[in-house]
């Protein structure tokens, strides 16, 4: 491709009239533009499918798929970073012998345990791994914080505080819905929602539902305690032995099986409870379901992490490989259960709903539950970052297929944009922070085992950086790196000062926001007052105009007053 200057020069050299040259220039410019545009169109994944889903189910279900696409982009970026900096140098150095070697999975390059701890020609493997993970986590954190902040500003601060107000319901009629049945259903739903927003709940229902709620809450706690105990029991049973008999292998599969089963069954119970409980707004219903599911998943993950971090290193050498294997098994089972759940589970309830018990109806697409599944699998990806990408494609297409065949749109349309904010916030706060703290704990406190992993032989993973700084001291010209390291990164005063400054800035911005809110309130009051002034002056004007023809003697004076009022009125209107 020639640059524009060269192109113009080439056209100028053609032996044609000026008009034809101008035409050629215009045509070639258009062609380049069209090529660029069609390239960017192909980059927009799934545009046709998303349009049809939005047409049938509406924008709130579409948020699930938008979120999925966002996560996929995120993961592709992380895959490129990891692959580029860690795997490729190793492959280049070791050649393909590792991949075609022994049949055991644990020796492939995708596997943390087999990384060599030698420094390849000028490329320090330990440092590469450490810094890649660190930079990747920091970038994840920063991008999550930014999207959270932008979403929060758009959807919470600037938006209306009343969630169920009539105007909001009317203005957000979804114009992209084209299916006739879907439109009819939406209209009925909207009518029901409007009626609900008008009427109050009857007093007698309140007492019954409160009693139910207490009972259901106690059931929840019982459930959680039961699953904790069972998980502990199962973990104790599944011990890692060195004799690799078939029974031992089967036993190791028990833990992920139980975990995935719990993950599948208990949210269904929660959805069942949700149907019986009565909430004043649809949003509160979703939030209650979401909070319960989040607690469930956090508790599962924390039990597993505690077990791995405390028990496994005491057991012996090569704990990194063991943890990696357990994670891999967990992820595999999670994926299998997800596929089974979406195909058979919803297919079955569709069949039951339409043929056997028509009163139950077709299952609704539970946006909250599915999004939480996504977040959970994303968290697992942060622990072991290689196996997710294909999975995302397959699981998303299976979910969309089951969606179109088995489910109907949710009965009450939620606030799509605010739900998007909540999802990103959930992704960040419990899950990312949890993953980050586990990774940090692993890097700082746990001793790497002596036989596998790239950090073997060191006291903890972070001492790789110490070693490197020690080496740098001897090289002149890089003293500034050592200085920065010793006085900035390792000193506590630096972090203390930064935290203090950030807190002060937050306080100042908070005060500014409060002042602006007060200003908005006063300006609104001023608009109302000016409206009243305007109508008062109009009435006066009309009265005076009526009384002018009757009183001829005082005509001049009245006219003067009339003109004065008129001028005041026009100045107010402008």
């Amino acid at each position, binding site marked *: 491709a020639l640059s524009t200057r060269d192109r113009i020069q080439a056209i100028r050299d053609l032996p044609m009239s000026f008009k034809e040259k101008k035409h050629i220039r215009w045509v070639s410019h258009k062609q380049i533009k069209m090529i660029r545009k069609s390239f960017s169109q192909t980059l927009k994944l799934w545009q046709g499918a998303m*349009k049809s889903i939005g047409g049938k189910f509406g*924008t709130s279900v579409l948020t699930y798929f938008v979120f999925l696409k966002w996560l996929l982009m995120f993961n592709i970026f992380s895959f490129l970073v990891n692959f580029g900096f860690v795997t490729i140098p190793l492959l280049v150095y070791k050649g393909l012998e590792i991949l075609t070697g022994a049949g055991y999975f644990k020796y492939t390059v995708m596997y943390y345990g087999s990384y060599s701890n030698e420094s390849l020609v000028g490329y320090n493997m330990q440092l590469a791994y450490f810094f890649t993970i660190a930079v990747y986590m920091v970038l994840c954190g920063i991008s999550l914080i930014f999207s959270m902040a932008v979403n929060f500003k*758009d*959807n919470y601060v*600037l*938006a*209306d505080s*009343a969630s169920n*107000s*009539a*105007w*909001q319901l*009317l*203005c*957000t*009629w*979804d*114009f*992209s819905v*084209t*299916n*006739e049945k879907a*439109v*009819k259903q939406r*209209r*009925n739903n*909207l*009518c029901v929602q*409007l*009626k609900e927003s*008008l009427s109050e709940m009857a007093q007698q229902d309140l007492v019954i539902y409160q009693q139910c709620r207490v009972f259901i809450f106690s059931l929840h706690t019982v459930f959680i305690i039961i699953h904790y105990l069972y998980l502990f029991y199962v973990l104790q049973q599944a011990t890692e032995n060195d004799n690799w008999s078939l029974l031992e292998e089967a036993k190791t599969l028990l833990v992920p099986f139980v975990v995935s089963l719990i993950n599948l069954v208990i949210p269904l119970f929660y959805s069942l409870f949700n149907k019986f409980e009565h909430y004043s707004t649809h949003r509160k219903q979703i939030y209650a379901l979401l909070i319960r599911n989040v607690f469930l998943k956090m508790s599962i993950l924390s039990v597993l992490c505690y077990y791995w971090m405390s028990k496994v290193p005491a057991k012996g050498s090569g704990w990194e490989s063991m943890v990696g294997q357990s994670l891999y098994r967990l992820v595999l089972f999670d994926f299998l259960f997800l596929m089974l759940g979406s195909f058979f589970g919803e297919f079955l309830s569709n069949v039951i709903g339409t043929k056997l018990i028509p009163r139950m109806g077709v299952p609704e697409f539970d946006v909250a539950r599915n999004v939480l599944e996504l977040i959970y699998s994303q968290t697992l990806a942060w622990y072991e970052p290689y196996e997710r990408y294909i999975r995302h494609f397959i699981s998303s297409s299976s979910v969309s297929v089951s969606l179109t065949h088995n489910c109907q749109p949710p009965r009450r349309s939620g*606030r*799509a*944009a*605010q739900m998007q904010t909540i999802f990103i916030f959930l992704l960040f706060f419990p899950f990312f922070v949890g993953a980050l703290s586990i990774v940090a704990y692993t890097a700082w406190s746990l001793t790497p085992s002596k036989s596998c992993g790239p950090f073997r032989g060191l006291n903890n993973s972070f001492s790789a950086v110490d070693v490197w700084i020690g080496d740098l001291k001897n090289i002149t010209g890089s003293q500034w790196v050592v200085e920065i390291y010793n006085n900035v990164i390792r000193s506590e005063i630096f972090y203390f000062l930064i935290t203090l400054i950030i807190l002060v800035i937050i306080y100042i911005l908070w005060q500014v926001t409060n002042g602006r809110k007060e200003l908005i309130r006063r300006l*609104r009051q001023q*608009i*109302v007052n*000016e*409206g*009243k002034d305007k*109508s008062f002056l109009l009435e006066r004007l009309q009265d005076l105009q009526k009384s002018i023809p009757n009183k001829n003697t005082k005509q001049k004076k009245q006219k003067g007053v009339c003109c004065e009022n008129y001028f005041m009125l026009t100045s107010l209107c402008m």
Partner: protein
Amino acid sequence: MGTTASQLSKESLSEYQSNPFKERICQVFSTSEQKDGSLTFEDFLDLLSAFSDSATLEIKSHYAFRIFDFDDDGTLDCADLEKLVNCLTGETNDAKLSSTEMKQLISNILEESDIDKDGTVNLSEFQHVISRSPDFVSSFKIVL
């Protein structure tokens, strides 16, 4: 689709038969003298451009206001709001709001959005309400 001089009548927009605002949309975007809601090609382009992803909030809210203004008088008064609510809820008897409910709903709407308290919602008040609703831009969209 014919030459640029041909007209598109309301009935041929078959994809949007189910849209409850189909007649209003045709009326708003039509520039024909007969006022029968037929669209030329340029009108159709205007329609698509207003409903596209890249249209700004001002354009969308301007056209939304004109679509909701059933009597074309430049403000949304009680009759317009009542027609709007009836358009968006169902036509069967149990899906309709009763007259007391309708009155209550309209007074709620006016209380929330009528800033200068003159009993009608004009364009700036409507745009102010729309700007507080983050879902409007994503739902006021037709993608071909």
